[in-house]
């Protein structure tokens, strides 16, 4: 259990949020031109990193906005939150 700093609403309890998995997996613009392998890559294959991971979260019980988060999955430490469409922090 941890606190998340919603980029819109400020610091809130994690129970107000829902996780949406890895960030920056863009839905292919032309799915019909992908092979089954490439489509499976988009659908199912994940890095599932132990360590610093970029992921999507939704303030489901607050402003309902999706945003991105940089979090260390090995200790739940959050390094950054940033809005959808913004560039991920480089460090």
């Amino acid at each position, binding site marked *: 259990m941890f606190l998340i700093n919603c980029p*819109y*609403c400020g610091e*809130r309890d994690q*129970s*107000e949020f829902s996780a949406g998995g890895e960030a920056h997996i863009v839905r292919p613009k032309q799915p019909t031109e992908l092979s089954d392998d490439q489509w499976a890559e988009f659908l199912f294959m994940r890095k599932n990193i132990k360590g610093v991971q970029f992921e999507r979260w939704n303030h489901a*019980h607050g402003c309902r906005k999706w945003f991105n988060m940089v979090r260390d999955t090995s200790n739940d430490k959050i390094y950054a939150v940033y809005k959808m469409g913004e560039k991920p922090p480089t460090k």
Partner: protein
Amino acid sequence: MPNWNSAIKKIDVNDVVSVNLNHHSELFISEVEPIMKLNIRGKSRDFLSMIGKILNIILPTETNTSTTNKFITAIWLSPDEWLIFKNNVTNRGAEETNIEENLYKNISQKKLGSITNVSDQFVMINIQGKNLYELLSSGCPFNFNDFKNKKGAVTQTLLNHTDVIIYNEDINKINLFVRRSFSAHLWSWMNDSARFI
């Protein structure tokens, strides 16, 4: 005209429920009779100025705040979403319809945003008393420390696992918005929880 029915079972809306169980507890919980509530959405400058023109109110753009005028209050829900509600209980009918239709015509139909009537989507419950925040904290992950001293503050959070919008109307006085189908259960929970503070 059809009968209006409260969402909160077996509670006469005119009957203010008060809980005063021991020497230091003081809580008054009542459902506020139906008032107009609109969900308004939009992003552009034109949208904001049109709303201002029609409602004579500046929508709050600061997170977790509200603005109010003589007739209505607008509360911030997200960067492109607000809930506005009338400050006073009025009969439904022409006046309410006019505001909604005016907004719909000038916002929705002009593609500036969206206007949705949510008068019955949300039940508004007024809670007052010095033990108010103890009641809320018994079922809510939100930290009310700053909120409770900030008149006009707004938060969306969970109360007893239920989505709620809480508006700080005044010291120890809030309005709580809960979706109608959840309201009877939440009401029951509040009455139960109030016995333990």
